């Protein structure tokens, strides 16, 4: 835009615009190249790992009985996929994990709401929460089995024991961190504690709750696999223990690979959810 004091010739303006566009193009091209290099390197590492493993197995550098090798692992997975004996195990474990982390987040958040609501109760419960949080919850496993029977309930109870308290601590922490001025906005309009919670505390803590969901996906897997080690007749944890007992380590490693894939997918799904919820902040 030419102004009266310093008139810039039209040609020069055009040249400058051209320059800034070409710089931007170069920047984008550079970025794309960098991303491609990262992807290629990642792929090469994966490939090299499997190749080396395969080689080590076939040339007997490692004990095949213990460490197997990729072609054996993948052919086992393929067979089990085709004969339909893998999917029920995946299904059972995924179901238990989803129930575990959903309920864990729900109960943990509910407990956080209760202690936020009553500062008295918060002070009363504080030492109990500290003890429960410090305790290795997996050690409660035998109690769950005798109390709830060797089945689904015990597995979910194990998972909940791991996820609930940590969720409560994180969510309660985020309730308390909400800026008091937001609360003031609601209070000056005559909003009571319930309104304050509904309109401010809960929506403001939503990102924190979703973040605990992410942590709980990981913790729920720990709970479910340990639970299945202890009691189950079905599930990926059962497959690992079974493979271990019959000394079929190809089965153990195959199961680990399935767990890695499914757990990653679940984690990604929660990440997508988180992005959607926190879009405007």
């Amino acid at each position, binding site marked *: 835009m030419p102004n009266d004091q310093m008139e810039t010739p039209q040609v020069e303006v055009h040249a400058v615009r051209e320059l800034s566009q070409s710089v931007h193009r170069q920047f984008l091209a550079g970025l794309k190249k960098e991303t491609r290099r990262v992807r290629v390197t990642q792929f090469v590492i994966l490939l090299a790992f499997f190749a080396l493993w395969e080689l080590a197995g076939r040339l007997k550098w490692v004990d095949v009985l213990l460490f197997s090798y990729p072609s054996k692992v993948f052919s086992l997975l393929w067979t089990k996929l085709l004969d339909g004996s893998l999917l029920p195990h995946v299904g059972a474990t995924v179901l238990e994990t989803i129930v575990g982390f959903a309920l864990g987040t729900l109960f943990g958040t509910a407990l956080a709401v209760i202690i936020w609501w009553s500062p008295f109760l918060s002070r009363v419960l504080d030492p109990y929460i500290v003890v429960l949080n410090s305790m290795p919850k997996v050690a409660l496993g035998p109690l769950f089995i005798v109390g709830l029977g060797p089945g689904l309930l015990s597995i979910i109870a194990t998972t909940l024991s791991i996820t609930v308290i940590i969720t409560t601590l994180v969510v309660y922490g985020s309730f308390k961190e909400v800026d008091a001025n937001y609360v003031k*906005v609601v209070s*000056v*309009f005559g909003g009571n504690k319930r309104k304050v919670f509904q*309109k401010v505390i809960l929506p403001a803590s*939503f990102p924190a709750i979703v973040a605990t969901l992410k942590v709980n996906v990981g913790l729920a897997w720990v709970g479910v696999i340990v639970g299945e080690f202890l009691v189950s007749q079905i599930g990926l944890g059962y497959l690992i223990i079974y493979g271990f007992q019959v000394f079929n380590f190809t089965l153990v490693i195959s199961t680990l690979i399935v767990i890695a894939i499914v757990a990653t997918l679940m984690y990604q799904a929660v990440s997508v959810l988180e992005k959607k919820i926190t879009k*405007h902040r």
Partner: protein
Amino acid sequence: MNEAVNVKDVTQVYVTEQRATLAIQQMSFAIRRGEFVSLIGPSGCGKTTVLSIIAGLIAPTAGSVQVAGETVMGPSTRVGYMLQQDYLFPWRTIADNAAIGLEISGTLTKEKKAEVLHLLGEMGLLRFKDYYPAQLSGGMRQRVALVRTLATDPEILLLDEPFSALDYQTKLQLEDLVVETLRAKQKTALLVTHDISEAIAMSDRVIVLEPNPGRIRKQFAVPAAIREPLPFEAREQPGFNALFRDIWQEFGGDTDAE
């Protein structure tokens, strides 16, 4: 009853585990209906505490406050409160933010919703109604906060340094907008600020407080020539600088002592 607000012998003590602090000592003043009054003073003179007591957010340790002849027992829709920053909820759209007061008091009808949109329109914000706060500038956000406060149609507006977080230019524009709006709607206002020139330019009367404990030091009536034009114009009126100097002297001594 011609008094919109009547503060009578209010004393406020804050307690912590360590000590009890006297924040306000026997403060009394009244605001006439439609009047614009400023409270100014250095930090520690209990300005925000006075607002919180009038808004019914805290009960005074001693003394009482009446709004439109009724003793304040808690927050009510009679009193609107504007904070130092907008504090719009980032997860709500502009229109939903502006309507939250109605939502909380349970009076959000279709007509009221239309009124809120009309108010947003008056502030030049209608086309942003579906935006989120993060997409707006600081001045626009504070204008939304003004709409939010006006939406419940309060008789009295408490303004707690509402321009302090804004850049100078935006602040001048908003001062004019607020004075113009409150005059048109015949609202009573109590502004808390530490900016002397803002206090003179906007108000009919300036109350200077002194700190530790907070109490009234002196009151200044703003002459008609300064109080009638909008704040921006008011700053250019003869007598403005003289009044500024008088008020400055009132709290110059104590700021040195701090």
